[in-house]
């Protein structure tokens, strides 16, 4: 190659003229000026209209008489009624009790699980990591369904093996099912934290003569403390806002989420439903804000020098951690196995002959509910990942006015319980002129908004990996915003886009609380059908419906794996799918 590239210079200074006939179109550039403001305003309006407006409707109904905004109408009567009725007030104490209990159990369980994954040399880590992520692919009702099959009034273990009268309904059932539901969420945080903290710190301490216990309490625990608090806050938030598990296994033990539903659906007391929503919003908002500030600190702790070279663990340590991880994994597998097997046997636990009869769904929804769910989820997936990518792009690279404000709006949905958002949607949009009310479209919008935060955060972190010079190169060559986005940014974000798609798809397939108020006589969703079937006594069919959802989500995850492998992006099972 040497020297050759200088030979072919036939362009001389005389020929060198700016070709005006092929200049950059001025009209196109004039239009381009409006693209970023338009998109910014669109996103702001979207969040205003589909997040703040429903929230406002809830506030209005709970604080103002007849829901009519005005100083004269201001009233605390609803709250007074709530706090003076012992039954409803109990829901608050119940919620706090199960949430605190779940938080403590999950944080401890998951910490040692993550410790085993990051600080020991046990084998089968990939298996354990995938198993602990499994609860993500199912609606947060599977735990309750399985526990009832195992420990319920007719439970396989309680009634048939042990022949005892005890059953799991109530607080115990809620706590156990919530623990099994929250494991993957807490695991992601603690796994990241523990892998990020430099293991050489432990080695340094050991080389200075510290005992293993001292190393653990003085080095490992303190360095992971932000991760621990963050995982705890998230677990608390997930538990207190969960609806699926308590509604199935709670029996008479009412919690805030089930109480909102009962007030609205059974008693038509929208005002009390709204009031309880506000009461639920307070602790979940506090947990969210706490988590938000802590997770900022977690990232500050992550050192670039951290290297996951783990020294071989002692045999006793290896054996005990392997047993521990097996136990946790076994509990999760049992949950899934019970529901899947339960959907194929004739009468659990009396008649174990196999049958497909439970898959002939007796409810109105049936298979049409599954197809609606799939279609809704595909739209949620495409819409959610596209909107969050565009929003992330505009916010990250084009720095519009009010960037901080839009950012704040974008992280808010994570703080709002799905059930509260859903109730807000009824209150705000149940008017004849909102044509989308009562159609699947309101569900699509609702699920996108409810999961907006994680979508936009992952879009932004992906966009930060793209060299800003690439964007500038495109601009300097005459690329406008739309062309730059579609020709360069979008192709470069393909894998992240598809991961986001799968995330939105998965959330949409499995969410219960966000959409329970939005299904109607004509629009059925698979996840909600589970509750309906279980409610009507078709427990085996509820299991079958649950199995269908799991299979569909797993298929989508499989496609993600294939696509990611093809495009050469490194994947680590479900962990990176998050």
């Amino acid at each position, binding site marked *: *190659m*040497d020297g*050759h*590239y*200088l*030979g*072919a*210079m*036939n*362009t*001389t*200074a005389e020929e*060198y*003229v*700016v*070709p005006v006939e*092929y*200049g*950059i*179109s*001025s009209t196109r*550039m004039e239009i*381009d*000026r409006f693209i970023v403001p338009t998109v910014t305003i669109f996103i702001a309006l979207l969040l205003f209209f589909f997040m703040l407006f429903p929230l406002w409707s809830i506030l209005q109904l709970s604080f103002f008489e007849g829901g009519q905004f005005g100083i004269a109408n201001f009233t605390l009567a609803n709250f007074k009624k709530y706090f003076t009725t012992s039954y409803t007030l109990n829901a608050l104490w119940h919620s706090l009790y199960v949430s605190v209990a779940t938080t403590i159990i999950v944080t401890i369980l998951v910490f040692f699980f993550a410790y085993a994954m990051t600080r020991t040399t046990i084998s089968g880590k990939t298996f354990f990591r995938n198993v602990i992520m499994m609860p993500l692919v199912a609606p947060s009702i599977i735990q309750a369904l399985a526990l009832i099959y195992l420990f319920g009034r007719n439970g396989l273990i309680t009634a048939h093996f042990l022949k005892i009268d005890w059953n799991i309904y109530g607080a115990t059932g809620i706590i156990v099912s919530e623990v099994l539901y929250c494991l993957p969420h807490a695991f992601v945080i603690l796994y990241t934290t523990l892998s990020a903290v430099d293991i050489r710190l432990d080695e340094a301490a050991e080389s200075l003569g510290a005992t293993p216990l001292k190393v653990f309490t003085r080095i490992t625990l303190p360095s992971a403390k932000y991760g621990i608090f963050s995982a705890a806050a998230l677990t608390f938030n997930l538990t207190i806002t969960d609806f699926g598990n308590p509604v199935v296994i709670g029996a008479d033990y009412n919690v805030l989420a089930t109480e909102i539903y009962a007030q609205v659906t059974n008693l038509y007391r929208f005002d009390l439903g709204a009031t309880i929503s506000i009461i639920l919003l307070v602790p979940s908002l506090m947990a969210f804000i706490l988590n938000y500030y802590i997770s900022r600190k977690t990232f500050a702790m992550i050192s670039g020098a951290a290297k996951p070279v783990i020294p071989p663990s002692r045999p006793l340590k290896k054996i005990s951690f392997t047993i521990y991880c097996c136990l946790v994994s076994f509990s999760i597998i049992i949950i899934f196995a019970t529901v899947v097997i339960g959907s194929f046997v004739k009468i659990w636990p009396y008649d174990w002959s196999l049958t497909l009869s439970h898959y002939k769904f007796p409810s109105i929804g049936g298979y049409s509910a599954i197809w609606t769910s799939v279609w809704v989820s595909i739209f949620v997936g495409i819409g959610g990942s596209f909107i969050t990518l565009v929003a992330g792009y505009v916010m990250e690279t084009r720095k519009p006015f009010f960037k901080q404000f839009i950012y704040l709006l974008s992280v808010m949905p994570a703080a709002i319980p799905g059930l509260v958002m859903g109730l807000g949607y009824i209150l705000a949009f149940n008017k004849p002129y909102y044509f989308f009310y009562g159609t699947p479209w309101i569900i699509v919008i609702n699920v996108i908004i409810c999961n907006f935060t994680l979508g936009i955060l992952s879009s932004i972190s992906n966009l930060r990996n793209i*060299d800003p*010079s*690439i964007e*500038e*190169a*495109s*601009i*300097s*060559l*005459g*690329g*406008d915003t739309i*062309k730059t986005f579609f*020709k*360069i940014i979008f*192709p*470069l974000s393909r894998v992240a886009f598809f991961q986001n798609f799968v995330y939105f798809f998965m959330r949409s397939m499995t969410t219960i609380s966000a959409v329970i108020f939005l299904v109607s006589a004509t629009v059925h969703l698979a996840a909600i059908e589970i509750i309906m079937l279980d409610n009507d006594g078709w427990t085996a069919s509820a299991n079958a419906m649950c199995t269908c959802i799991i299979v569909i989500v797993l298929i989508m995850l499989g496609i993600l794996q294939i696509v990611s492998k093809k495009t050469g992006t490194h994947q680590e099972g479900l962990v990176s799918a998050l």
Partner: protein
Amino acid sequence: MSKKLVLENVSKHFGSLIAVNNVSLDIMPGEFLCFLGPSGCGKTTILRMITGFEQVTAGNIIYDGKIINDVIPQKREFGIVFQSYALFPNMTVNQNIAFGLKMRKMPQKLIDERVNEMLGLLGLAGWDTHYPSQLSGGQQQRVALGRALAIKPSVLLLDEPLSALDAKIRVRLRTVIKRLQEELGITMIYVTHDQEEALALADRVVIMRDGEFRQIGSPFDIYKEPKTSFIAEFVGTSNFLTCTKKNGKIQFGRLEFVAANSSDVAEETVYLAIRPENIEIVDVTVPADNCVPSNIVEVEVEVINFLGAVVRITFFLEGEEMFVDLPEKEFEKISLKRKDKVKLYFPPDAFHIYTELFRKLI
């Protein structure tokens, strides 16, 4: 053809930080201009204001007699080459070079012609269907050059384009860029922190420090007549002698030197700078008869570094570490060893006299 580009009292503030402080400069059509300075001196900020990626805080950027402060980057028709190449990874070499032309809605036939012309110009023929990830760093930067030149920009701006490459490729591509500029007659504005690169390429060099222009001149002038002690140290290497001036005589410790033009300086403390290659070795590179006797000193060789074409000898003078560079051929004649004594001569007119020292280098 390129037109005159003028910076008129340009300033750029980032909050309370003043990145560029009221600078003015006329950049002539077809000129190769280098902004040279240490990192954080504001050179990249100036480039980004010329490209339109940053807005000026005060002053004007004028191209062809028109103020272009508010012209968007797309309409400036300036080509840019980035340090990180910034090639589009999802496009082939061909598509990368064609990108700007496609944006201009040029007919495909003309695009093909232009792309082929660029491939030939940059020695990339045969690589057109490759993706950037399949190319070496040097090839990628040539693609980036071709992409920027394909739109026939009126000015080409290069932001440390060779910093990410290894030494050999860097020198080779330097020649490519210089030849392109001379053949195409296009104005090139080049930002670098590498003084050797700036001296090798530029018609004019602008030395920047703390957001200001410290010296503007040809590479020759800047090397031979650095205006400040900072430039004397930053461009090339200089030995500094902190001296006191008494009764018109310059004293360095116990030594007394004669320096040309020293009578112009009124201050009591003066700093003499002398480049290592300007120190002579008595009776080797200069006969003793031609020397001013007071400027001859005997020193002990401390370290000898063989650098190829030159040999650098480190010695101490009045406790100060200094260097003398000797052409390898001259060094062969005397074959010095560590701890050998050698007589050095500091020619009076080789000294530059400064009244400030930017900071003592370790």
